């Protein structure tokens, strides 16, 4: 009992910043960024809010699926960078698109989209006739310290969405979590309560790049192997892998350790950067709209991020 993907959508900010643009405001250069991350340019929210991008992605996914907002039974937003702590991004989005269904946010950092698909599977088990909208939208540019090049050159903004309906296309999914507050963390607002000391946490996203690299490569390899085994498929049978677009170096290292042809790994990190939870559905929409995916293709998805969380799945593409 799972679901099928009826349609995809994405939303990107109009503002595009190249590595050369960043070199003008911090101590870095194009070659430094390219060789360490594989990123050439990224989109950053300038005029738009992250809610605007979520709305755009949602509307495009609804259009692609032929489902109306009124028909939706549930909206899940995977995000940690919405415009409000409350209301949730999902509630704001519900009003924007004119839906009437329950709506909530889910925070599993960069793995949020995989977690949301797993949550959706539970709803489909209860009622296979549902229509569920998942939107993963992140504006990590709001969280990074723009004086610190190790994170500000990597993270970017964007949104990806899928509409799910009745089907049996999710063949296997596996999620993990291992609580850790030092490898990758961003503190919440601390307010101005007069009865305690001010928070000593820097109000920015902090990342231990070396620890995250090691965690990312090993978990991606472990998770993809696990879901292939659960689904009973081989590396040869996988048509495409849609990995989290975290860092090209992580992908290259994982590709070298997996028994799947490296050409099957789809990437857009060169022009999108790391958009956290949005990365996988954003890539899915781009390859869907480009006509890369064919009906019956077997897809592997894998993500990892703050938490530390990880997730992977095997999905049949039947659109």
């Amino acid at each position, binding site marked *: 009992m799972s679901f099928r993907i009826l349609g995809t959508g994405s939303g990107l900010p109009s503002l595009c910043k190249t590595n050369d643009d960043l070199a003008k405001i911090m101590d870095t250069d194009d070659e430094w960024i390219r*060789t*360490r991350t594989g990123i050439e340019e990224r989109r950053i929210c300038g005029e738009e809010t992250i809610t605007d991008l979520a709305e755009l992605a949602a509307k495009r996914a609804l259009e692609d699926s032929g489902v109306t907002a009124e028909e939706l039974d549930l909206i899940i937003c995977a995000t940690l960078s919405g415009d409000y702590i409350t209301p949730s991004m999902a509630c704001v989005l519900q009003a924007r698109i004119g839906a009437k269904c329950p709506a909530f946010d889910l925070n599993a950092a960069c793995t949020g989209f995989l977690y949301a698909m797993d949550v959706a599977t539970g709803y489909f088990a209860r009622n296979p006739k549902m229509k569920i909208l998942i939107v993963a939208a992140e504006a990590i540019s709001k969280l990074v310290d723009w004086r610190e090049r190790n994170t500000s050159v990597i993270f970017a903004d964007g949104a990806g969405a899928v509409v799910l309906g009745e089907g049996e296309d999710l063949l296997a999914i596996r999620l993990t979590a291992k609580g850790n507050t030092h490898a990758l963390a961003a503190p919440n607002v601390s307010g101005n309560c007069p009865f305690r000391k001010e928070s000593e946490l820097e109000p920015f996203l902090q990342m231990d*790049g*070396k620890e995250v*690299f*090691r965690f990312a*490569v*090993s978990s991606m390899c472990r998770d993809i192997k696990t879901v292939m085994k659960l689904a009973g498929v081989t590396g040869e049978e996988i048509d495409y892998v849609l990995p989290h677009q975290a860092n090209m*170096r992580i992908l290259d*290292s994982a590709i*070298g350790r997996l028994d799947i042809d490296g050409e099957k790994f789809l990437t857009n990190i060169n022009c999108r950067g790391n958009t956290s939870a949005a990365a996988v559905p954003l890539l899915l929409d781009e390859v869907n709209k480009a006509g890369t995916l064919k009906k019956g293709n077997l897809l592997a998805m894998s993500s990892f991020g703050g938490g530390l969380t990880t997730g992977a799945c095997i999905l049949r593409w039947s659109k």
Partner: protein
Amino acid sequence: MTTFEKVANILVDAKDCEADKIKMESTWAELELDSLDTVELVMNLEDEFSISLEMNEDMKTVGDVVKAIDAALE
């Protein structure tokens, strides 16, 4: 094969280092490895020697890594 020879082979195979440039006293910078390369090297060494290694700031040369592997193997 000595630990040094195995480490040198991994540096050649995985990191495209030139074999004749790899010495016990070679630093990562001399071998043109950045911080992520050293993390990947440690992962490769752990697989090769079936040990658990922690790359720390004191491990600056090939020789430092060779000594850490030999200590882990004892």
